[in-house]
């Protein structure tokens, strides 16, 4: 919708009618593009980037992986899209939010500059002129990002010293092709070393292996859940194991809160359930919780919706209980030879980390627990529970007793 009124009220009305965006007159090419981009990116936000890429984007830019790009762009949606495209194929991005910052952040070891032409403070043409006037930046191509087919813009861009242009909204294939054409490998300005994607996200021992997980779990899309945790199987298992105990009685509690008219508590609980379910890939439960949350927000009767959510919750919880039995850690079976000085130094490390609210403290507690020292079992297992809830202060309070128990071992 295009309107000459810039009022907030009008925009709210427009949205209620189901319009996706609005342009305020006078319309500039840049705002048209920015509006299109915001519609485009909010509609496709849930779609993995790979689906939006051309057939072999990496192939187009294989020779320039690791190149350093200065991106000058003021619109946050456009920034996000451009950064995803650039970093997705192994290019390194430095962001400048306007022309002035582009000039300040410019470095002689960049391999190219992507410059939006319409920016506040200092526009892209002016910023280009300043950069071009400095000898140390000779030979670094500056590529304009402009609205498509605006002949006038292209002339201005060339005149300012830009070598080419890409159009917005960005067409990935053309975008990559242009970059590959203008970035020339130069031994005096070597590219960054790019880790192989496969080895970076692959199953290192600390992150665990997919085979540790069951092939399927009721109500849970395991691949979806893993994708939310960047493929970290260990963390995923931990969250799955905690779920029945922590969220198992959520629906019941929500009903109790509502019967006592404690709406705020009920809303908070369903909100939390929704976020945890979403991260685990429990899609049906997530959707059901979202409906309950929406109903509660509107003060509607959520009875039926809560029943549906309770059913989904039961499916997930029962599935987890039967598919993930047993203990989560492999503890030492023989407690015979324990190196006390090692235990003590671990406890010293632990204290430092706890006082720093550092999450690495959880691993140290796990390590101590896995040593299987029977006289420390109960206290360490309490400490683990507290640390898993990130209640580091309570763990610190237990350190003194823990040290005493360790001294008693010999």
């Amino acid at each position, binding site marked *: 919708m295009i309107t000459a009124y810039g009022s907030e009220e009008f925009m709210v009305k427009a949205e209620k009618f189901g319009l996706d965006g609005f342009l305020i007159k006078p319309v500039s090419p840049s705002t048209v593009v920015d509006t299109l981009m915001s519609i485009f990116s909010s509609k496709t936000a849930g779609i993995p980037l790979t689906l939006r890429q051309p057939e072999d984007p990496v192939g187009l830019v294989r020779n320039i992986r690791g190149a350093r790009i200065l991106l000058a762009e003021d619109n946050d949606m456009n920034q996000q899209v451009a950064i995803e495209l650039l970093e997705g194929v192994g290019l390194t991005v430095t962001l400048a939010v306007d022309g002035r910052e582009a000039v300040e952040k410019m470095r002689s070891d960049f391999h190219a500059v992507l410059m939006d032409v319409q920016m506040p403070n200092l526009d892209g043409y002016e910023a280009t002129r300043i950069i071009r006037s400095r000898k140390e930046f000779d030979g670094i191509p500056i590529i304009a990002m402009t609205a498509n087919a605006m002949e006038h813009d292209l002339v201005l861009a060339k005149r300012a010293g830009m070598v080419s242009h890409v159009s917005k909204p960005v067409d990935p294939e053309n975008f990559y092709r242009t970059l590959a054409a203008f970035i020339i490998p130069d031994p005096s300005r070597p590219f960054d070393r790019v880790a192989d994607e496969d080895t970076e996200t692959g199953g290192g021992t600390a992150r665990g292996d997919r085979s540790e997980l069951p092939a399927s779990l009721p109500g849970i899309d395991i691949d979806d859940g893993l994708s939310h945790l*960047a493929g970290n199987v260990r963390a995923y298992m931990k969250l799955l194991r905690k779920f029945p105990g922590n969220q198992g009685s959520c629906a019941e509690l929500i009903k109790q809160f509502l019967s006592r008219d404690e709406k705020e508590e009920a809303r908070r609980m369903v909100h939390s359930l929704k976020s945890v379910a979403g*991260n685990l890939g429990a899609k049906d439960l997530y959707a059901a919780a979202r409906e309950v949350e929406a109903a509660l927000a509107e003060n509607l009767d959520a009875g039926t919706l809560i029943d549906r959510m309770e059913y989904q919750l039961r499916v997930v919880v029962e599935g987890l209980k039967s598919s993930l039995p047993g203990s989560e850690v492999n503890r030492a079976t023989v407690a015979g030879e324990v190196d006390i000085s090692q235990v003590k130094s671990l406890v010293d490390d632990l204290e430092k980390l706890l006082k720093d609210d550092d999450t690495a403290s959880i691993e140290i507690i796990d390590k101590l627990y896995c040593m299987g020292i029977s006289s420390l079992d109960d206290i360490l297992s309490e400490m683990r529970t507290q640390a898993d809830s990130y209640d580091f202060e309570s763990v610190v309070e237990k350190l003194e007793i823990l040290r005493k128990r360790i001294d008693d071992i010999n």
Partner: protein
Amino acid sequence: MSETSKNILIVDDTPENITALTAIISKFGKIKAATSGMKALKICSGGIKPDLIFLDVTMPEMDGWEVFSRLRQDNTTAAIPVIFVTALTGDSDREKAMSMGAAGYITKPLDAELICSLVKRFI
């Protein structure tokens, strides 16, 4: 590789959400955790400031907006980039976050790829 000396603070009242986010970003540095707004402010008032904060919006007692404005009022913490994390949906919150000067805004369920690219922008 990233420097391991960087500090990232995650603030969320739901421990599971801290665990999930930590799983994604622990490769970027040291991860600190706070389960309340007050605790987050306490950590930020210490000598070592976080280089980046992930801040949940919906929390009891002190919500994310309040934590954010308090951080902004204090000169020693005003410049720390803050990325809001929320399970709320709707553009109004995104716009609110951006107009307040947040460094980013992400929604749950988490999008690991997007989060990593955001972290790399600030660290």
